[in-house]
Protein backbone atom coordinates (compact mmCIF):
# COMPACT_ATOMS: atom_id res chain seq x y z
CA UNK A 1 0.00 0.00 0.00
CA UNK A 2 1.30 3.43 -0.86
CA UNK A 3 -0.30 6.78 -0.39
CA UNK A 4 0.71 10.34 -0.96
CA UNK A 5 -0.68 13.70 -0.09
CA UNK A 6 -0.71 16.64 -2.41
CA UNK A 7 -1.26 20.30 -1.71
CA UNK A 8 -2.96 22.00 -4.64
CA UNK A 9 -1.69 25.44 -3.58
CA UNK A 10 1.88 24.33 -4.03
CA UNK A 11 1.99 23.34 -7.66
CA UNK A 12 5.64 22.28 -7.71
CA UNK A 13 5.03 19.83 -4.90
CA UNK A 14 1.95 18.44 -6.60
CA UNK A 15 3.92 17.81 -9.77
CA UNK A 16 6.72 16.17 -7.83
CA UNK A 17 4.28 13.89 -6.09
CA UNK A 18 2.95 12.67 -9.41
CA UNK A 19 6.43 11.54 -10.36
CA UNK A 20 7.15 9.61 -7.22
CA UNK A 21 3.73 8.44 -6.11
CA UNK A 22 4.71 4.79 -6.16
CA UNK A 23 7.11 5.35 -3.28
CA UNK A 24 6.62 6.68 0.19
CA UNK A 25 9.08 9.54 -0.31
CA UNK A 26 6.40 12.12 -0.87
CA UNK A 27 4.40 11.34 2.22
CA UNK A 28 6.42 13.09 4.90
CA UNK A 29 7.62 16.31 3.38
CA UNK A 30 5.18 17.51 0.80
CA UNK A 31 5.08 21.05 2.11
CA UNK A 32 7.47 23.57 0.68
CA UNK A 33 10.64 24.08 2.72
CA UNK A 34 10.19 27.08 4.94
CA UNK A 35 6.42 26.89 4.78
CA UNK A 36 4.52 27.68 7.95
CA UNK A 37 3.05 24.99 10.16
CA UNK A 38 -0.28 25.23 8.32
CA UNK A 39 -1.05 21.69 7.14
CA UNK A 40 -3.65 20.34 4.79
CA UNK A 41 -6.29 17.83 5.75
CA UNK A 42 -4.63 15.32 3.42
CA UNK A 43 -1.49 15.36 5.54
CA UNK A 44 -3.46 14.19 8.56
CA UNK A 45 -5.29 11.43 6.72
CA UNK A 46 -4.21 7.80 6.37
CA UNK A 47 -5.97 4.66 5.24
CA UNK A 48 -5.43 1.24 6.82
CA UNK A 49 -6.02 -2.05 5.02
CA UNK A 50 -7.43 -0.64 1.78
CA UNK A 51 -8.78 -3.15 -0.73
CA UNK A 52 -11.15 -3.20 -3.67
CA UNK A 53 -13.51 -5.88 -4.85
CA UNK A 54 -12.30 -7.53 -8.06
CA UNK A 55 -14.76 -7.25 -10.97
CA UNK A 56 -14.57 -7.74 -14.71
CA UNK A 57 -16.91 -4.97 -15.79
CA UNK A 58 -19.52 -2.58 -14.44
CA UNK A 59 -19.36 -1.66 -10.79
CA UNK A 60 -17.21 -2.34 -7.77
CA UNK A 61 -16.36 -0.77 -4.45
CA UNK A 62 -13.31 0.08 -2.37
CA UNK A 63 -12.91 -0.32 1.37
CA UNK A 64 -10.51 0.44 4.21
CA UNK A 65 -10.33 2.45 7.40
CA UNK A 66 -9.66 6.17 7.09
CA UNK A 67 -7.84 7.67 10.06
CA UNK A 68 -7.52 11.30 11.02
CA UNK A 69 -4.55 12.28 13.19
CA UNK A 70 -5.50 15.97 13.45
CA UNK A 71 -7.69 17.86 15.90
CA UNK A 72 -10.06 18.90 13.13
CA UNK A 73 -12.68 16.81 11.33
CA UNK A 74 -11.75 15.88 7.76
CA UNK A 75 -14.49 15.97 5.15
CA UNK A 76 -14.08 13.72 2.11
CA UNK A 77 -16.19 15.34 -0.59
CA UNK A 78 -15.52 13.15 -3.64
CA UNK A 79 -13.41 10.32 -5.03
CA UNK A 80 -11.90 9.50 -8.40
CA UNK A 81 -9.97 6.58 -9.84
CA UNK A 82 -8.45 5.83 -13.20
CA UNK A 83 -10.09 2.41 -12.84
CA UNK A 84 -13.66 3.80 -12.92
CA UNK A 85 -15.56 6.31 -15.05
CA UNK A 86 -17.34 7.75 -12.04
CA UNK A 87 -17.24 7.28 -8.30
CA UNK A 88 -19.66 8.07 -5.48
CA UNK A 89 -19.40 8.14 -1.71
CA UNK A 90 -22.03 5.73 -0.47
CA UNK A 91 -23.67 4.83 2.79
CA UNK A 92 -26.11 2.04 3.56
CA UNK A 93 -29.22 2.89 5.57
CA UNK A 94 -32.53 1.32 6.51
CA UNK A 95 -35.41 2.64 4.43
CA UNK A 96 -38.98 3.13 5.73
CA UNK A 97 -39.76 -0.53 5.03
CA UNK A 98 -36.72 -1.67 7.00
CA UNK A 99 -34.83 -2.70 3.90
CA UNK A 100 -31.13 -1.88 3.80
CA UNK A 101 -30.53 0.41 0.86
CA UNK A 102 -27.57 2.29 -0.44
CA UNK A 103 -27.46 5.96 -1.18
CA UNK A 104 -25.03 8.77 -1.77
CA UNK A 105 -23.77 10.13 1.50
CA UNK A 106 -25.08 13.67 1.91
CA UNK A 107 -22.15 15.99 2.48
CA UNK A 108 -19.61 13.24 1.94
CA UNK A 109 -17.70 11.28 4.59
CA UNK A 110 -16.57 13.01 7.77
CA UNK A 111 -13.53 11.44 9.41
CA UNK A 112 -13.73 12.74 13.00
CA UNK A 113 -10.82 14.55 14.63
CA UNK A 114 -8.38 11.98 16.07
CA UNK A 115 -10.79 9.29 14.95
CA UNK A 116 -11.48 6.87 12.16
CA UNK A 117 -14.11 6.18 9.54
CA UNK A 118 -14.61 2.64 8.34
CA UNK A 119 -15.42 1.74 4.75
CA UNK A 120 -16.66 -1.86 4.66
CA UNK A 121 -18.90 -4.19 2.66
CA UNK A 122 -22.50 -3.62 3.66
CA UNK A 123 -21.66 -0.21 5.10
CA UNK A 124 -20.02 3.00 3.91
CA UNK A 125 -17.88 2.51 0.82
CA UNK A 126 -16.31 4.12 -2.21
CA UNK A 127 -18.58 3.15 -5.08
CA UNK A 128 -16.98 2.63 -8.49
CA UNK A 129 -19.13 2.80 -11.62
CA UNK A 130 -18.15 2.07 -15.19
CA UNK A 131 -14.92 0.16 -14.69
CA UNK A 132 -12.43 1.23 -17.36
CA UNK A 133 -10.78 -2.22 -17.45
CA UNK A 134 -11.22 -5.54 -15.68
CA UNK A 135 -10.18 -5.13 -12.07
CA UNK A 136 -8.51 -8.50 -11.64
CA UNK A 137 -7.44 -10.07 -8.37
CA UNK A 138 -4.00 -8.94 -7.22
CA UNK A 139 -3.77 -5.72 -9.27
CA UNK A 140 -3.48 -2.40 -7.47
CA UNK A 141 -6.05 0.30 -8.15
CA UNK A 142 -5.27 3.95 -7.37
CA UNK A 143 -7.79 6.31 -5.80
CA UNK A 144 -7.81 10.04 -5.11
CA UNK A 145 -10.01 11.50 -2.41
CA UNK A 146 -10.85 15.22 -2.67
CA UNK A 147 -11.09 16.85 0.74
CA UNK A 148 -13.13 19.92 1.73
CA UNK A 149 -10.05 22.10 2.21
CA UNK A 150 -9.03 21.53 -1.42
CA UNK A 151 -6.25 19.05 -0.70
CA UNK A 152 -6.27 15.54 -2.12
CA UNK A 153 -5.31 12.17 -0.66
CA UNK A 154 -4.16 9.36 -2.89
CA UNK A 155 -3.89 5.66 -2.07
CA UNK A 156 -3.63 2.32 -3.79
CA UNK A 157 -5.60 -0.79 -2.92
CA UNK A 158 -5.16 -4.38 -4.10
CA UNK A 159 -8.11 -6.03 -5.81
CA UNK A 160 -9.42 -9.14 -4.05
CA UNK A 161 -11.94 -11.75 -5.10
CA UNK A 162 -14.93 -11.23 -2.83
CA UNK A 163 -18.41 -12.68 -3.18
CA UNK A 164 -20.12 -10.26 -0.79
CA UNK A 165 -20.73 -6.52 -1.08
CA UNK A 166 -23.54 -7.19 -3.53
CA UNK A 167 -25.91 -4.65 -2.00
CA UNK A 168 -23.76 -2.04 -3.71
CA UNK A 169 -24.67 -3.36 -7.09
CA UNK A 170 -28.38 -3.95 -6.59
CA UNK A 171 -29.07 -0.59 -5.05
CA UNK A 172 -27.05 1.32 -7.54
CA UNK A 173 -29.01 -0.15 -10.35
CA UNK A 174 -32.35 0.77 -8.78
CA UNK A 175 -31.07 4.25 -8.09
CA UNK A 176 -30.23 4.85 -11.71
Amino acid at each position, binding site marked *: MTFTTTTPHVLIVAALAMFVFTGCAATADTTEPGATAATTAAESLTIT*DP*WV*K*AADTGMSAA*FGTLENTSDTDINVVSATSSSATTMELHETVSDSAGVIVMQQKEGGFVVPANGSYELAPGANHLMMMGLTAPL*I*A*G*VDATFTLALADGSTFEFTA*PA*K*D*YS*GANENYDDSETNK
Partner: protein
Amino acid sequence: MTDDEQPSAGRRLSRRHLLLGGAAAGIGAVGAVGIDAATRPDAPALAEPLNGTQTVPFYGVHQAGIDTVPQSNVALIALDLAEGTDAATLRRLLKLLTSDAARLSQGEAALADSEPELAVAPARLTVTFGFGPGLVAAAGGIRPAWLRPLPAFSVDRLDPALGEGDLLMKIASDDALTVAHATRMLLKDSRSFATVRWVQSGFRRAPGSVKPHTTMRNVFGQVDGTVNFVPGTPDFDRLVWGAANNPSWLRGGTGFVLRRISMNLDKWDKLDRSGREASVGRTLHNGAPLTGTNETDEPDFDAKTAIGFPVIAEFSHMRRARSENPDERILRRGYNYDEAPNTDGVSNSGQLFISFQADVDAQFVPIQRRIDELDLLNVWITPIGSAVFAIPPGCAAGSYIGDTLF
Protein backbone atom coordinates in the same frame (compact mmCIF):
# COMPACT_ATOMS: atom_id res chain seq x y z
CA MET B 1 -4.51 -41.92 25.11
CA THR B 2 -2.89 -43.40 28.21
CA ASP B 3 -3.08 -42.16 31.75
CA ASP B 4 0.57 -41.23 31.97
CA GLU B 5 0.16 -38.77 29.13
CA GLN B 6 -2.96 -37.02 30.43
CA PRO B 7 -2.69 -36.03 34.08
CA SER B 8 -5.87 -36.54 36.05
CA ALA B 9 -5.89 -32.89 37.10
CA GLY B 10 -6.21 -32.02 33.44
CA ARG B 11 -9.18 -34.30 33.11
CA ARG B 12 -10.95 -32.76 36.08
CA LEU B 13 -10.30 -29.33 34.66
CA SER B 14 -11.70 -30.34 31.31
CA ARG B 15 -14.86 -31.71 32.84
CA ARG B 16 -15.56 -28.58 34.84
CA HIS B 17 -14.81 -26.47 31.81
CA LEU B 18 -17.30 -28.57 29.86
CA LEU B 19 -20.04 -28.12 32.47
CA LEU B 20 -19.65 -24.39 32.41
CA GLY B 21 -19.19 -24.32 28.69
CA GLY B 22 -22.92 -24.35 27.95
CA ALA B 23 -23.63 -21.38 30.17
CA ALA B 24 -20.65 -19.52 28.81
CA ALA B 25 -21.28 -20.27 25.16
CA GLY B 26 -22.87 -16.89 24.53
CA ILE B 27 -19.80 -15.11 25.85
CA GLY B 28 -17.42 -16.87 23.50
CA ALA B 29 -14.31 -18.91 24.03
CA VAL B 30 -12.32 -16.28 25.89
CA GLY B 31 -15.19 -15.71 28.28
CA ALA B 32 -15.53 -19.43 28.90
CA VAL B 33 -11.89 -19.76 29.83
CA GLY B 34 -12.20 -16.83 32.16
CA ILE B 35 -15.08 -18.44 34.04
CA ASP B 36 -13.21 -21.72 34.20
CA ALA B 37 -10.20 -20.05 35.78
CA ALA B 38 -12.30 -18.01 38.16
CA THR B 39 -14.15 -21.01 39.57
CA ARG B 40 -11.00 -22.96 40.34
CA PRO B 41 -10.23 -22.92 44.07
CA ASP B 42 -6.61 -22.02 43.41
CA ALA B 43 -7.44 -19.58 40.62
CA PRO B 44 -4.46 -17.38 39.81
CA ALA B 45 -5.02 -13.65 39.81
CA LEU B 46 -4.23 -13.40 36.11
CA ALA B 47 -5.65 -15.52 33.32
CA GLU B 48 -3.26 -18.14 32.01
CA PRO B 49 -1.68 -17.22 28.68
CA LEU B 50 -3.66 -18.77 25.88
CA ASN B 51 -2.13 -21.08 23.31
CA GLY B 52 -4.18 -19.28 20.70
CA THR B 53 -2.35 -15.98 21.08
CA GLN B 54 1.08 -17.47 20.31
CA THR B 55 2.56 -16.36 17.01
CA VAL B 56 5.51 -17.36 14.82
CA PRO B 57 7.16 -14.51 12.87
CA PHE B 58 6.24 -14.60 9.18
CA TYR B 59 8.95 -12.47 7.57
CA GLY B 60 12.57 -13.58 7.60
CA VAL B 61 15.45 -15.16 5.71
CA HIS B 62 13.72 -18.54 5.77
CA GLN B 63 10.04 -19.38 5.55
CA ALA B 64 8.33 -20.27 8.82
CA GLY B 65 7.04 -23.79 9.43
CA ILE B 66 10.33 -25.62 8.78
CA ASP B 67 12.46 -24.89 11.86
CA THR B 68 9.30 -24.17 13.87
CA VAL B 69 8.43 -26.71 16.58
CA PRO B 70 5.77 -28.78 14.76
CA GLN B 71 2.24 -27.60 15.40
CA SER B 72 -0.46 -30.14 16.19
CA ASN B 73 -2.55 -29.76 13.00
CA VAL B 74 -1.55 -29.49 9.38
CA ALA B 75 -3.29 -29.12 6.03
CA LEU B 76 -1.20 -29.70 2.94
CA ILE B 77 -2.77 -28.25 -0.18
CA ALA B 78 -1.48 -28.64 -3.72
CA LEU B 79 -2.78 -26.35 -6.44
CA ASP B 80 -2.57 -26.68 -10.20
CA LEU B 81 -2.11 -23.33 -11.96
CA ALA B 82 -4.56 -22.45 -14.71
CA GLU B 83 -3.37 -23.27 -18.22
CA GLY B 84 -1.16 -20.54 -19.62
CA THR B 85 -0.40 -18.80 -16.31
CA ASP B 86 2.35 -16.25 -17.00
CA ALA B 87 4.92 -14.68 -14.70
CA ALA B 88 2.89 -11.51 -14.10
CA THR B 89 -0.19 -13.50 -13.11
CA LEU B 90 1.90 -15.70 -10.85
CA ARG B 91 3.31 -12.64 -9.09
CA ARG B 92 -0.19 -11.33 -8.43
CA LEU B 93 -1.17 -14.69 -6.91
CA LEU B 94 1.93 -14.92 -4.73
CA LYS B 95 1.47 -11.36 -3.44
CA LEU B 96 -2.13 -12.09 -2.45
CA LEU B 97 -1.23 -15.35 -0.72
CA THR B 98 1.75 -13.77 1.05
CA SER B 99 -0.45 -10.99 2.38
CA ASP B 100 -2.99 -13.51 3.71
CA ALA B 101 -0.32 -15.69 5.31
CA ALA B 102 1.55 -12.76 6.87
CA ARG B 103 -1.57 -11.28 8.42
CA LEU B 104 -3.26 -14.48 9.57
CA SER B 105 -0.05 -15.79 11.15
CA GLN B 106 0.05 -12.67 13.34
CA GLY B 107 -3.59 -12.99 14.38
CA GLU B 108 -4.85 -10.27 12.02
CA ALA B 109 -7.78 -10.84 9.70
CA ALA B 110 -6.81 -11.08 6.04
CA LEU B 111 -7.88 -8.29 3.70
CA ALA B 112 -11.48 -9.03 2.66
CA ASP B 113 -11.72 -11.68 5.38
CA SER B 114 -15.39 -12.63 5.71
CA GLU B 115 -14.81 -14.28 9.10
CA PRO B 116 -12.36 -11.93 10.85
CA GLU B 117 -13.26 -13.34 14.27
CA LEU B 118 -11.63 -16.63 13.27
CA ALA B 119 -8.28 -14.90 12.80
CA VAL B 120 -7.77 -13.88 16.42
CA ALA B 121 -6.29 -17.19 17.65
CA PRO B 122 -3.36 -18.01 15.34
CA ALA B 123 -2.00 -20.64 17.77
CA ARG B 124 1.45 -20.55 16.07
CA LEU B 125 -0.06 -20.57 12.58
CA THR B 126 2.50 -20.88 9.80
CA VAL B 127 1.92 -21.03 6.06
CA THR B 128 4.83 -22.47 4.09
CA PHE B 129 4.79 -22.23 0.30
CA GLY B 130 6.44 -24.70 -2.06
CA PHE B 131 6.91 -24.56 -5.82
CA GLY B 132 6.51 -27.51 -8.19
CA PRO B 133 8.29 -27.77 -11.54
CA GLY B 134 5.25 -26.33 -13.35
CA LEU B 135 5.31 -23.14 -11.30
CA VAL B 136 9.07 -22.67 -11.72
CA ALA B 137 8.64 -23.05 -15.48
CA ALA B 138 5.73 -20.58 -15.53
CA ALA B 139 7.94 -18.06 -13.74
CA GLY B 140 10.77 -18.66 -16.19
CA GLY B 141 13.07 -19.80 -13.35
CA ILE B 142 15.80 -22.42 -13.26
CA ARG B 143 14.58 -25.78 -11.95
CA PRO B 144 16.81 -27.49 -9.40
CA ALA B 145 17.75 -30.92 -10.81
CA TRP B 146 15.89 -32.77 -8.06
CA LEU B 147 12.60 -30.87 -8.56
CA ARG B 148 10.70 -33.66 -10.30
CA PRO B 149 8.76 -36.76 -9.24
CA LEU B 150 10.89 -39.18 -7.20
CA PRO B 151 12.20 -42.25 -9.01
CA ALA B 152 9.75 -45.16 -8.95
CA PHE B 153 10.19 -47.54 -6.01
CA SER B 154 8.98 -51.14 -5.98
CA VAL B 155 6.96 -50.59 -2.78
CA ASP B 156 5.03 -47.67 -4.30
CA ARG B 157 1.32 -47.95 -5.04
CA LEU B 158 0.94 -44.27 -5.89
CA ASP B 159 -2.37 -42.56 -6.56
CA PRO B 160 -1.65 -39.61 -8.89
CA ALA B 161 -4.59 -37.78 -7.30
CA LEU B 162 -2.58 -37.65 -4.04
CA GLY B 163 0.70 -36.42 -5.44
CA GLU B 164 2.74 -33.65 -7.11
CA GLY B 165 1.26 -30.25 -8.08
CA ASP B 166 2.32 -26.71 -9.03
CA LEU B 167 1.99 -24.84 -5.73
CA LEU B 168 2.11 -26.27 -2.22
CA MET B 169 0.66 -24.57 0.83
CA LYS B 170 1.52 -26.19 4.15
CA ILE B 171 -0.81 -24.64 6.71
CA ALA B 172 -0.03 -25.61 10.30
CA SER B 173 -1.38 -24.48 13.66
CA ASP B 174 -2.05 -25.82 17.13
CA ASP B 175 -5.73 -25.09 16.49
CA ALA B 176 -7.73 -26.97 13.84
CA LEU B 177 -10.29 -24.17 13.38
CA THR B 178 -7.45 -21.76 12.65
CA VAL B 179 -6.14 -24.16 9.99
CA ALA B 180 -9.64 -24.35 8.47
CA HIS B 181 -10.00 -20.57 8.35
CA ALA B 182 -6.54 -20.00 6.86
CA THR B 183 -7.26 -22.72 4.30
CA ARG B 184 -10.53 -21.08 3.34
CA MET B 185 -8.94 -17.64 3.00
CA LEU B 186 -5.97 -18.86 0.94
CA LEU B 187 -8.18 -20.93 -1.34
CA LYS B 188 -10.58 -18.04 -1.91
CA ASP B 189 -7.63 -15.96 -3.05
CA SER B 190 -6.34 -18.82 -5.25
CA ARG B 191 -9.66 -19.50 -6.91
CA SER B 192 -9.25 -17.31 -9.98
CA PHE B 193 -5.67 -18.52 -10.56
CA ALA B 194 -5.61 -22.24 -9.84
CA THR B 195 -7.59 -25.35 -8.96
CA VAL B 196 -7.18 -27.57 -5.92
CA ARG B 197 -5.33 -30.75 -6.85
CA TRP B 198 -5.39 -32.35 -3.41
CA VAL B 199 -5.73 -31.59 0.29
CA GLN B 200 -4.14 -33.82 2.91
CA SER B 201 -4.68 -33.21 6.61
CA GLY B 202 -2.65 -34.52 9.51
CA PHE B 203 -2.28 -34.27 13.25
CA ARG B 204 0.03 -34.79 16.17
CA ARG B 205 -0.62 -34.60 19.91
CA ALA B 206 -2.51 -31.49 21.00
CA PRO B 207 -0.49 -28.81 22.84
CA GLY B 208 -0.15 -29.70 26.52
CA SER B 209 -0.98 -33.38 26.07
CA VAL B 210 2.64 -34.45 26.42
CA LYS B 211 5.86 -32.64 27.34
CA PRO B 212 7.09 -30.18 24.69
CA HIS B 213 9.59 -31.65 22.23
CA THR B 214 8.39 -35.22 22.83
CA THR B 215 9.09 -37.25 19.68
CA MET B 216 5.79 -37.97 17.97
CA ARG B 217 4.14 -41.38 17.97
CA ASN B 218 2.65 -42.76 14.79
CA VAL B 219 -0.64 -44.68 14.56
CA PHE B 220 1.27 -47.95 15.05
CA GLY B 221 2.17 -46.60 18.50
CA GLN B 222 5.84 -46.28 17.60
CA VAL B 223 8.06 -43.40 18.66
CA ASP B 224 8.72 -41.99 15.21
CA GLY B 225 11.45 -39.51 14.24
CA THR B 226 13.97 -39.75 17.09
CA VAL B 227 16.99 -38.95 14.93
CA ASN B 228 16.39 -35.44 13.61
CA PHE B 229 18.20 -32.16 13.04
CA VAL B 230 18.07 -29.46 15.69
CA PRO B 231 17.43 -25.93 14.36
CA GLY B 232 20.42 -23.63 14.65
CA THR B 233 23.03 -26.39 14.44
CA PRO B 234 25.62 -26.68 11.65
CA ASP B 235 23.90 -29.88 10.41
CA PHE B 236 20.60 -28.07 10.05
CA ASP B 237 22.18 -25.09 8.32
CA ARG B 238 24.08 -27.26 5.86
CA LEU B 239 21.62 -30.05 5.09
CA VAL B 240 18.35 -28.09 5.26
CA TRP B 241 19.23 -24.48 4.42
CA GLY B 242 22.42 -25.29 2.54
CA ALA B 243 22.97 -24.06 -0.99
CA ALA B 244 23.78 -27.53 -2.37
CA ASN B 245 23.83 -27.05 -6.15
CA ASN B 246 20.57 -25.18 -6.06
CA PRO B 247 19.83 -22.17 -8.32
CA SER B 248 20.37 -18.80 -6.69
CA TRP B 249 16.65 -18.03 -6.32
CA LEU B 250 16.45 -20.94 -3.87
CA ARG B 251 19.14 -19.61 -1.46
CA GLY B 252 17.60 -19.58 1.99
CA GLY B 253 15.09 -22.17 0.87
CA THR B 254 15.15 -25.95 0.81
CA GLY B 255 13.53 -29.04 -0.71
CA PHE B 256 10.29 -30.71 0.39
CA VAL B 257 9.20 -34.31 0.08
CA LEU B 258 5.78 -35.70 0.93
CA ARG B 259 5.18 -39.43 1.05
CA ARG B 260 1.66 -40.43 2.00
CA ILE B 261 2.22 -43.75 3.77
CA SER B 262 -0.76 -46.00 4.30
CA MET B 263 -0.29 -47.98 7.53
CA ASN B 264 -2.33 -51.18 7.63
CA LEU B 265 -3.56 -51.31 11.23
CA ASP B 266 -5.68 -54.41 10.68
CA LYS B 267 -2.59 -56.30 9.53
CA TRP B 268 -0.43 -54.73 12.26
CA ASP B 269 -2.90 -56.05 14.86
CA LYS B 270 -1.82 -59.60 14.01
CA LEU B 271 1.79 -58.90 15.00
CA ASP B 272 2.84 -59.46 18.61
CA ARG B 273 4.78 -56.90 20.62
CA SER B 274 8.23 -58.41 20.07
CA GLY B 275 7.59 -58.59 16.33
CA ARG B 276 6.51 -54.97 16.30
CA GLU B 277 9.68 -53.92 18.10
CA ALA B 278 11.89 -56.07 15.86
CA SER B 279 10.43 -54.51 12.71
CA VAL B 280 11.89 -51.13 13.65
CA GLY B 281 14.64 -52.05 16.09
CA ARG B 282 13.27 -49.85 18.85
CA THR B 283 11.12 -50.52 21.93
CA LEU B 284 7.49 -49.47 21.89
CA HIS B 285 7.70 -48.28 25.51
CA ASN B 286 10.00 -45.30 24.92
CA GLY B 287 11.57 -45.76 21.51
CA ALA B 288 14.97 -46.83 22.88
CA PRO B 289 17.09 -48.93 20.50
CA LEU B 290 16.70 -52.62 21.37
CA THR B 291 20.32 -52.44 22.56
CA GLY B 292 19.72 -49.43 24.84
CA THR B 293 17.49 -48.05 27.57
CA ASN B 294 16.79 -44.44 26.55
CA GLU B 295 15.27 -43.09 23.34
CA THR B 296 18.39 -41.18 22.35
CA ASP B 297 20.88 -43.98 23.08
CA GLU B 298 23.04 -44.83 20.09
CA PRO B 299 22.08 -48.23 18.71
CA ASP B 300 24.70 -51.00 18.89
CA PHE B 301 24.34 -52.70 15.53
CA ASP B 302 27.06 -55.22 16.44
CA ALA B 303 25.29 -56.56 19.54
CA LYS B 304 24.26 -60.23 19.22
CA THR B 305 21.67 -62.35 20.98
CA ALA B 306 22.68 -65.42 23.00
CA ILE B 307 22.27 -67.57 19.92
CA GLY B 308 24.28 -65.23 17.71
CA PHE B 309 21.67 -63.19 15.84
CA PRO B 310 21.91 -59.36 15.72
CA VAL B 311 19.78 -57.73 18.46
CA ILE B 312 18.83 -55.06 15.91
CA ALA B 313 17.96 -57.12 12.86
CA GLU B 314 19.42 -56.46 9.42
CA PHE B 315 15.89 -56.04 8.08
CA SER B 316 14.83 -53.50 10.76
CA HIS B 317 13.65 -50.08 9.65
CA MET B 318 16.16 -48.23 11.82
CA ARG B 319 19.11 -50.09 10.31
CA ARG B 320 17.86 -49.70 6.75
CA ALA B 321 17.03 -45.99 7.09
CA ARG B 322 20.45 -45.13 8.51
CA SER B 323 23.34 -44.32 6.20
CA GLU B 324 27.05 -44.34 6.88
CA ASN B 325 27.22 -41.21 4.73
CA PRO B 326 26.48 -38.24 7.05
CA ASP B 327 25.19 -36.23 4.08
CA GLU B 328 22.32 -38.68 3.58
CA ARG B 329 20.17 -37.22 6.32
CA ILE B 330 16.90 -35.28 6.28
CA LEU B 331 14.73 -33.12 8.56
CA ARG B 332 11.55 -35.03 9.38
CA ARG B 333 8.28 -33.32 10.25
CA GLY B 334 5.66 -36.00 9.73
CA TYR B 335 2.01 -36.01 10.73
CA ASN B 336 -0.51 -38.80 11.30
CA TYR B 337 -3.69 -39.16 9.33
CA ASP B 338 -6.84 -41.10 10.16
CA GLU B 339 -9.69 -41.00 7.69
CA ALA B 340 -12.99 -42.74 7.06
CA PRO B 341 -12.45 -46.47 6.50
CA ASN B 342 -12.55 -47.86 3.01
CA THR B 343 -13.49 -51.36 1.92
CA ASP B 344 -10.20 -52.85 3.20
CA GLY B 345 -11.04 -52.76 6.90
CA VAL B 346 -12.17 -50.59 9.75
CA SER B 347 -9.25 -48.17 9.54
CA ASN B 348 -7.76 -45.93 6.86
CA SER B 349 -4.78 -44.50 8.69
CA GLY B 350 -1.19 -43.66 8.09
CA GLN B 351 1.38 -40.94 8.00
CA LEU B 352 2.06 -37.84 6.00
CA PHE B 353 5.81 -38.41 5.89
CA ILE B 354 7.26 -34.93 5.36
CA SER B 355 10.94 -34.22 5.03
CA PHE B 356 13.02 -31.15 4.28
CA GLN B 357 16.47 -31.37 2.70
CA ALA B 358 18.59 -29.05 0.57
CA ASP B 359 19.08 -31.72 -2.10
CA VAL B 360 16.33 -34.31 -2.48
CA ASP B 361 18.35 -36.54 -4.82
CA ALA B 362 21.45 -36.60 -2.62
CA GLN B 363 19.76 -36.84 0.77
CA PHE B 364 16.28 -38.40 0.54
CA VAL B 365 16.50 -40.74 -2.44
CA PRO B 366 19.35 -42.94 -1.10
CA ILE B 367 17.43 -43.50 2.15
CA GLN B 368 14.24 -44.43 0.29
CA ARG B 369 16.23 -46.70 -2.02
CA ARG B 370 17.64 -48.70 0.91
CA ILE B 371 14.18 -48.99 2.48
CA ASP B 372 12.76 -50.06 -0.87
CA GLU B 373 15.33 -52.86 -1.16
CA LEU B 374 14.78 -54.27 2.33
CA ASP B 375 12.78 -53.14 5.35
CA LEU B 376 10.52 -55.43 7.35
CA LEU B 377 8.18 -52.51 7.98
CA ASN B 378 7.23 -52.62 4.29
CA VAL B 379 4.96 -55.56 5.14
CA TRP B 380 2.59 -53.16 6.92
CA ILE B 381 3.17 -49.82 5.19
CA THR B 382 2.60 -48.67 1.59
CA PRO B 383 3.47 -45.33 -0.04
CA ILE B 384 0.29 -44.20 -1.82
CA GLY B 385 1.10 -40.55 -2.56
CA SER B 386 4.32 -38.71 -3.38
CA ALA B 387 5.25 -35.10 -4.05
CA VAL B 388 8.38 -32.98 -4.37
CA PHE B 389 8.42 -29.19 -4.05
CA ALA B 390 11.09 -26.51 -3.84
CA ILE B 391 10.62 -24.29 -0.79
CA PRO B 392 11.66 -20.74 -1.71
CA PRO B 393 13.33 -18.54 0.92
CA GLY B 394 11.39 -16.24 3.21
CA CYS B 395 10.84 -12.61 2.32
CA ALA B 396 11.11 -9.19 3.93
CA ALA B 397 8.07 -7.14 4.95
CA GLY B 398 6.70 -5.41 1.87
CA SER B 399 7.84 -8.18 -0.47
CA TYR B 400 6.35 -11.59 -1.19
CA ILE B 401 7.27 -15.28 -1.09
CA GLY B 402 8.81 -16.21 -4.43
CA ASP B 403 10.20 -12.73 -5.16
CA THR B 404 13.65 -14.19 -5.88
CA LEU B 405 12.22 -16.19 -8.78
CA PHE B 406 11.30 -13.17 -10.94
